[in-house]
Every structure is written in structure tokens, then in C-alpha cells.
């Protein structure tokens, strides 16, 4: 009897030892390769969106190697699956940096995953490229934000709808999933709308849980809110998964774009691919990139993507462009710095320029955000989004919103004399 229990006890210990051995076995870095970490969920709820970005990075690494690699070395992508599990994101980030010794990481989609890995990147002084539109209110020394900040998406979109061309909207429904990105965006928009003289009773704010699938009540509320005699629009910050049932309900309840247009910040080509868009024609989306934009760089990118993924039906979207811009900038910065050392590359990143896929040039600013053009498009019946309006030039991404009093006073500038992500006075 005693023996059995001993055996079992020893097995427990053995498992612990095996665990320790795991870290040791893989901890070796070869000098002749440059490693790029890919930290996107390949399973779980976020796999829908993130898997595409993993493939995009693999495509660009492949492309880079075909063109002779980087600094004369081969580039190797290290893919891990954080499985839409936020603590696992932090664990995998640490594994990529400490065990696999990657030189840079491309990854994360949700805000919470970024928040989860942020301390890891700061502690180990590594570099993350974050390719998704987000709520701002952050600027880390170790993160480059290549997606849109609220002033590069939300504000221009609302300004467009307020304009004559956009329909002269007077009444606003701000509908979002209850998490930080919609909360922030709506807070900024609310302040912005009020500064434009919109009254309280003309703003309706509604939050829904993640993956909300029964939209009957909210859509009929929107319908009622829109029947008060003023032109009404819906600003949707509804998160990925819940969008399909939302749009299906919109279509079924017959809310057409010429009555109540819906402008979305989280709906791109990829989300629309899961939908029959015929009833949705004319609803809007605001991004920095649309697949439909006619541009040589874009055509080239789409061609490469189709060849890489082996499917001509696959779409491209804004976070892919953001990944592309980030990747190209990193490559240029590494070439300029002549090394993959994080501090050197960071310095080389500032002012780095890459051609947008939509024409013009994206520039990396010293607040770690990009200057990019803003596009507003209407959904077409083939699932594409056609541009109906774009900013004249580029808009500089703002880490700290001017419409939130606490953050309006903060400055983000990682060069001398400020050297900080959010402070009121220069550090030096």
C-alpha cells in the first residue's frame, strides 16, 4: 500500500521536473537567424480575427527571405498560440522573448491581451508591434501602435456624418460591446458631440456583452430612437463576433442605410465575409485601409496574399495593412540600425516612412503612433467597402485624447527632451 502511494507521489515530482526541463531544452539561440515572434490566437474566440494576421506575418517573412533576408541573415518566424486566454498571452510573450530569444514580436488583438503582455515587454525591454485600432490612452516605450487611435477613426467618421455630404445627422446611437475600446471611444465621441452642440436626449448609448447574439430588442430600440423626426445614425463599436447577428437583425428588421446609417469601427472585409451584404449596402465603416482601394501597392499586396494563402476569395483588411506597415518599418529600421538590438532599432523607427497600401506615406511618430490617412467607405453587395470620403492628407495618431480632460494634458514623446509615454512636463 505504501508503495503505491510513493509511486504516485514520485510521479508528481517527476512531472515538476519535466516542467523545468522544458525551459532548458529549447533555450538556445542561433546567431545566423533573426527571429520574429508571432503572438496571435489561433484557437478560442479570437482565432476568427487573429489567424489571418499570423498568416500575414508569415507571408512577409517568406517574402523577406526570398529577397535575401535581413542583414544577410535568414529570418525565422516563431509562432505560438495564446489561445484567446489573456494570462497565457503574458506567459507566451515571456516564452518568446526569454526562451526563443526573438528580436521583435508582432501580435495581440484585444486591448486586454495587450495590457496583459505590456509589463512583460517593458520588463524585458523587447519590442511589440500592435496592429489593431484601439482606444488610445497608452504609449509604451516597447510598443509600436500601427492601428488607428480614436482620432484617426472615430472623430473623422462622426464629422463625416455630421457634414452635408454624410447626411447631416442630428441624433446619435452609440452602440458598443461593454469593454474598454467602445467605452473610451464613446466617451470621446460623447464629449466631441456635445462640443458640437448635440443635446443629451439626442445621444443614446447602449452596451452589450461579448458575443451578444440576440439583437431584437436593441435593433427595435434603434428603430424607435430613429423615429423622432431627426436624421439618426448609429456609431457601432460592437466587437467582431457579435457583428454578424447584429447586421443580420438590421437587415431583417429593414433598417436601410438611407434611413439610419450604421458606421462601424470594428467591421472590415473579414467580418463581412461571413455575411450576405445585400441588405447592408450603404452602411458605413471607417478605417485606414479598404481592400477596394485602387492602388498599385495594394494590388501587389493582394496578389501576394492570394498566392500565399492559396485562395483567391480571401480578403485583406485594415489590421493586415497595419501589420504590413509595421513589418516594413521594422525591416527598414533594422537595416538602418544595422542590428536588431531593441534600443537601436527603436531610435531608427522614428520618422521611418513606408508607402501606404492606399496611397501616400505612413510615418512613425515619436509617440509610437502612425500618421495615416482616414477612409470612410460604404458596404457593397459583394462584401467590399468602397471609399466615399478620405482625409486630404494624413492624420497623426494621438496617444492621449484631447476630449478627455485627464488625458488632454498628457504628452507622449519618446525623444529628447520629453522621453516619456505620458507626462505633463519634459523629463529633461
Amino acid at each position, binding site marked *: *500500500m*505504501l*508503495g*503505491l*502511494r*510513493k*509511486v*504516485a*507521489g*514520485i*510521479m*508528481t*515530482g517527476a*512531472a*515538476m521536473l519535466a*516542467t*523545468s526541463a*522544458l*525551459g*532548458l531544452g*529549447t*533555450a538556445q539561440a542561433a546567431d545566423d537567424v533573426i527571429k520574429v515572434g508571432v503572438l496571435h490566437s*489561433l*484557437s478560442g474566440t479570437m482565432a476568427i480575427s487573429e489567424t489571418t494576421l499570423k498568416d500575414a506575418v508569415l507571408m512577409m517573412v517568406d517574402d523577406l527571405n526570398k529577397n535575401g533576408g535581413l542583414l544577410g541573415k535568414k529570418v525565422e518566424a516563431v509562432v*505560438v*498560440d*495564446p*489561445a484567446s486566454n*489573456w*494570462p*497565457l498571452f*503574458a*506567459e*507566451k510573450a*515571456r*516564452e518568446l522573448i*526569454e*526562451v526563443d530569444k526573438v528580436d521583435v514580436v508582432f501580435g495581440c488583438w484585444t486591448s*486586454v491581451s495587450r*495590457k*496583459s503582455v*505590456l*509589463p*512583460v515587454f517593458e*520588463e524585458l525591454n523587447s519590442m511589440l508591434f500592435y496592429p489593431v485600432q484601439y482606444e488610445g*490612452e*497608452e504609449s509604451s516605450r516597447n510598443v509600436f501602435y500601427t492601428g488607428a487611435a480614436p482620432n484617426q477613426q472615430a472623430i473623422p467618421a462622426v464629422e463625416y456624418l455630421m457634414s452635408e455630404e454624410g447626411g447631416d445627422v442630428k441624433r446619435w446611437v452609440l452602440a458598443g460591446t*461593454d*469593454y*474598454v475600446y467602445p*467605452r473610451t471611444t464613446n*466617451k470621446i465621441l460623447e464629449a466631441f458631440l456635445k462640443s458640437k452642440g448635440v443635446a443629451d436626449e439626442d445621444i443614446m448609448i447602449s*452596451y452589450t*456583452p*461579448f458575443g451578444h447574439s440576440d439583437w431584437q430588442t436593441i435593433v427595435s430600440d434603434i428603430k424607435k430612437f430613429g423615429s423622432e423626426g431627426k436624421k439618426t445614425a448609429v456609431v457601432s463599436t460592437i466587437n467582431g463576433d457579435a457583428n454578424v447577428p447584429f447586421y443580420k437583425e438590421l437587415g431583417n428588421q429593414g433598417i436601410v442605410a438611407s434611413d439610419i446609417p450604421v458606421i462601424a469601427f470594428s467591421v472590415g472585409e473579414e467580418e463581412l465575409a461571413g455575411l450576405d451584404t445585400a441588405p447592408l449596402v450603404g452602411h458605413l465603416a471607417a478605417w485606414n485601409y479598404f481592400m477596394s482601394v485602387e492602388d498599385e501597392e495594394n494590388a501587389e499586396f493582394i496578389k501576394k496574399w492570394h498566392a500565399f494563402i492559396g485562395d483567391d476569395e480571401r480578403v485583406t483588411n485594415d489590421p493586415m495593412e497595419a501589420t504590413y506597415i509595421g513589418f516594413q518599418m521594422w525591416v527598414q529600421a533594422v537595416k538602418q540600425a544595422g542590428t536588431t538590438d531593441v534600443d537601436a532599432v527603436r531610435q531608427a523607427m522614428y520618422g521611418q516612412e513606408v508607402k501606404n497600401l492606399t496611397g501616400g506615406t505612413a510615418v512613425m511618430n515619436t509617440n509610437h503612433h502612425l500618421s495615416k490617412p482616414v477612409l470612410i467607405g460604404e458596404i457593397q453587395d459583394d462584401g467590399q467597402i468602397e471609399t466615399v470620403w478620405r482625409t486630404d492628407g494624413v492624420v497623426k495618431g494621438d496617444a492621449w485624447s484631447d476630449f*478627455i480632460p*485627464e*488625458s488632454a494634458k498628457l504628452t507622449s514623446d519618446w525623444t529628447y527632451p520629453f522621453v516619456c*509615454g*505620458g507626462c505633463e512636463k519634459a523629463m529633461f
Partner: protein
Amino acid sequence: MDFSSTKKGPFVSLVTGLPGGGKTFLGILLVAALLVPLSNLLVPESSFFHVPTYMVSLLGKYLSFALLALSVDLIWGYCGILSLGHGAFFALGGYAMGMYLMRQIGDRGVYGNPDLPDFMVFLNWTELPWYWTGFDMFPVAMTMVILVPGILAFIFGWFAFRARVTGVYLSIITQAMTYALMLAFFRNDMGFGGNNGLTDFKEILGFDLQSDGTRLGLFVCSVIALAFGYLISSFITQSKLGRVLIAIRDAESRTRFSGYRVEYYKLFVFVVSAVLAGIAGALYVPQVGIINPSEFSPAQSIEVVIWVAVGGRGTLWGAVLGAMLVNWGKSYFTGALPEAWLYMLGGLFVFTTLFLPKGIVGTSAIWIEKIKNRQTGPASTIPAYVKEE
């Protein structure tokens, strides 16, 4: 977390009263508690025997999962209560710790507000909600780590066990409980940071959370907590109370008719288990650096049950082993086979149920028993803890 030194007296007799396997288990824990820090600090990095700090935190995380699994095993393996919502107690303990860590940030948040965490500043809150008071003090926070899961378990158990909700009905309402809590914590209006939860912690008791020393300290605390949880659990299961619990597990009505107040026994062990889960959560949070509502998700709780089943239900170290093994597998395969690891994990679960019905520990015990029987003749019986139903 210094339980061992202050309460050493009674525990000495507890330890000596343990069966041999238990001592071995505690011994291994002790060795791990000594060897891991030593090899992390003293062995040079190039050596094969060096344990990197990364691994220390990971092991610490596994240990807190192991404690959670232990707490589930205590009620499921020994009392037949299948809780599909134990992640709720774990997460509540974690949130209590997270609130303490949040308050320790002080004015180092991005908005530099000394009183309010960033997310509250952001939601335009002007003062700390009442339920956050006191969480800046470590002892208060630690009390809450124990009290909050304990009280919730008490209230929940009080109603459920007295109403004689049993079996799968109980499992499903525990699931409803954790699901409701998850939705509630997702709400930004609740004042717990919504979906992002609590993160960006700086220090604990004045020690920098990112320093290697603190990590080792937390690791050692986790080992001690696991040992402590193990001692309590085995004390309960070895006592007369434990016999009654097993009786309840095997034939609840008969036990009741024998004159035992079944509901009080169940309530007691349920509360103890919830408190252990809460402590596990409190240890988990500083080591992974984030707590958010996804810890409440029913899937997470189901997974804990699966760790226990893989390791061996009704064997305390089986639960520990299962938790370690499954989580290690998860860590390893999400890195090594990112596209196929779910096949491995799913396959493991199916394989375990089909071929190792008593879990790894239980089944290997039966095998060894068989081998022994072949040697000595069919004299001994299968030990009580591997029998079920």
C-alpha cells in the same frame, strides 16, 4: 503567507500522521521549494540545471492551479459534489489580491491619480467605491481573499444543500453562478475594471513584482500554500468527518437516514474548498500579472474538473499531478504545435476517460495492486480512495 512558522505546533502531528505517500509528496514539495530557488540563483545560466526565472513564474502558476485542483478534488473526490463553478472562488480570491496590488500602484498610474486606479479615473469616478476601502492594507486584503469566497460558498451552499439540490442540478447551478459572476465582472459599471480586469501591477508589500527575488518568494509561498492545502485536505479526509463525507458521496440518503446532518457536512467541506480556491487565486494573480473576468468563464471551471479527472479523482496528489500535467502540456504544445495542440489536449481527455478511468494515479495504483496480487496472492483489497460509485 507565513502559515508554516506560526502554526507549526499542531502541524507537526499532522505531518507525522500522514500516510507514507503523503510524506513523500510533501518531501518533493519541500525539495522543489529549496532546489528551484537555489538553481535559479546559484547555478550559472549556461548550465543544464539552471532554472530560468521565466520557469519559476510558470511553476508558481502551475502550483496555484494545483491548489485549485486540490480544492475541487476535496469536494468532488471525497464528497461527490461536482462544482462546475469553482473558478468563481479562484477568481474572487484573485480579484481581492488584484485590488490590493492595484492600490499599491498609487500615483504611478498613467493619470497619476494617487487614490483611484486608472480605469476609475477613466470612467469619471471621483472617489473610490465603498467596497474598495481597506484594500490598500495587506492584512485586510488577505482576509478578503479568504472571506469573500468563503462567504459566497457559505451562502450558496447553505441554500443549495438544505434544498437538497444534488448531482447534475448542483453542477449546473454552480455553472450558472460563475457565468453570472463573469457577466457581472465584465460590466465596467461594477468597478472592477471590466473586461481588462486589473493589471499593470507594480509591487507587493514593497517588493518589486518584476524582480527575480519577488518571483522566487512568490514561488516559495505557492509551494507552502499547496503543502498547507494538502495537509488540511488530507487531515479532513483522514478524520472521522472524512469518512462521513465518503459515505455521503457513495450513498447520500443512507447517510442522512443514519442520522447525519448531511447538509452541514457538505457545507463545511464546500466552504473549506472555496477558501482554498480563493487562496490559489490570490497566489496566481501576482505571478501572472493580470486578473480579468475570463477566469470566471464556465469553460475554465470545467477544465479544472478535467485536471482532477486526469490526475485521479479522490486522490489528493492525483489532482495536483493532473493540474501540473495538463497545464504543462498546454504550455508546451501551444508553443511547439500551435496549430494542433487542441487535438492533443482533446485526445488526452478522451484517452484518459477510456483507458485510465480512475485517472493516472488511480489507474496506476490498480495496476500496481494487480502486479502485487500476482506476487502475494489476492489478499489485499483495493484502497478506499480508488473505489468510487
